[in-house]
């Protein structure tokens, strides 16, 4: 094993992970754009073509599961899912420290990113379930279909706000974006934002 020079870039995401992210972003992005055209009167008037929009919305929503499920074949992706799942002692009080501008060391993902990941995952599954109930009316009686519409409408607003926040954070950090684009980040960036991240030798 060769020892990398001390200033060599760090591998943050593998090729597989970057493609999972891209494909999921494209598919969920499609559902959100079509949703806007289906829901906002101003955009609906521009686009019309309701049945086409509905079909694109439904199938891109279903297809959004594929990259993540296929990604489970990747060891690096599974390892990152495990990281996102587990909250260590340093994650406790992370938000409080951020707000009070106290030091808040994080591992590969900070507590905010972990929370975002789980909220987005849960939210997407809820949208998928309620979407299927509306797509196939015979699945459930009327009262649950109305309930599903209610959850889907409000869920879309909340998930939209969540994803907007996600993109806002990314827009403020070019190097984090470079990490997803190229797979690599500088050691200085990693020290600054993810002090406790200890990349294993295979990363």
């Amino acid at each position, binding site marked *: 094993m060769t020892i990398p020079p001390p200033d060599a870039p760090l591998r943050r995401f593998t090729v597989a992970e970057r493609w999972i992210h891209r494909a999921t972003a494209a598919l969920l992005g499609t559902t959100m754009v079509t949703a806007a055209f289906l829901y906002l009167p101003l955009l609906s008037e521009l686009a019309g073509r309701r049945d086409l929009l509905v079909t694109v919305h439904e199938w891109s929503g279903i297809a959004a599961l594929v990259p993540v499920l296929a990604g489970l074949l990747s060891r690096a992706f599974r390892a990152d899912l495990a990281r996102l799942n587990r909250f260590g002692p340093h994650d406790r009080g992370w938000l409080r420290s951020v707000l009070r501008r106290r030091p808040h060391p994080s591992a590969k993902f900070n507590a905010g990113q972990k*929370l975002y990941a789980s909220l987005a995952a849960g939210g997407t599954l809820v949208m998928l379930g309620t979407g299927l109930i509306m797509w196939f009316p015979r699945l459930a009686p009327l009262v649950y279909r109305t309930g599903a519409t209610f959850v889907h409408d409000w869920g879309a607003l909340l998930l939209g706000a969540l994803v907007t926040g996600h993109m806002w954070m990314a827009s403020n950090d070019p190097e984090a974006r470079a990490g997803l684009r190229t797979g690599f980040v500088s050691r200085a960036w990693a020290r600054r934002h993810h002090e406790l991240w200890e990349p294993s030798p295979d990363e």
Partner: protein
Amino acid sequence: MTADERRGTPVGRRVVLGVLALGAAGVAVGARVQKATDGVLATVASKDPTGLTGLLPGGGGFRFYSVAASVPHRSADNYRLTVDGLVERPTTYTLKQLKEDLPSTRLVRDVQCVTGWRVPQTAFTGVLLSDVLAAAGVRPGAMALRFTCFDGVYTESLTLEQARRPDMLVAYGMRDEPITDAHGGPVRLYAAPMYFYKSAKWLAGITVTDEVTPGYWEKRGYDVDGWVGSSNGRDDHPTS
């Protein structure tokens, strides 16, 4: 991955399960919650000058639905309504003739969409379908009406018996104003007792036929007899 990162509390999994539980609870009680919030939101939306609250789910107001590629436009001058099929006197009306040659009727009813939204007490002005039919003279053997639209795509249907009800309108006014392009102007159907997909926008033709021809959405699974409250598996309060 270090052992340290592998331990820790599985908060992520708990959050995912929590969101799923919340979603399931929402599906279970959403119908009841919506009934409660709809009234509140509609009141707020009606007093909100920005109109932003109207965009919230159940915020009241109309949603725009069109199956055509763009909003079609006919001016008051170049609009025509043809009445043909099994009639004694096939006729083509201009908007002016519709307004002047036939008696005007004003209806104030709730508008109920089959997707759930409802706009209370909306005024529509126009000519009763029964007056249009009487003027054209329905021939024996006629059973139904087929409506075509100048968006080139949408179609609708009614039985002759339904069309002769006193709450079936060929409307040229909405909320006491001319109907806008987006709302289906200058002339649209207003089938007050039925779900709003029956109220075809951009009405161009009425053909009297000997049998019901299912309309656009009806070929895609909606009920042909779209009574509010007793069709499409819904139990909304009747509108007429």
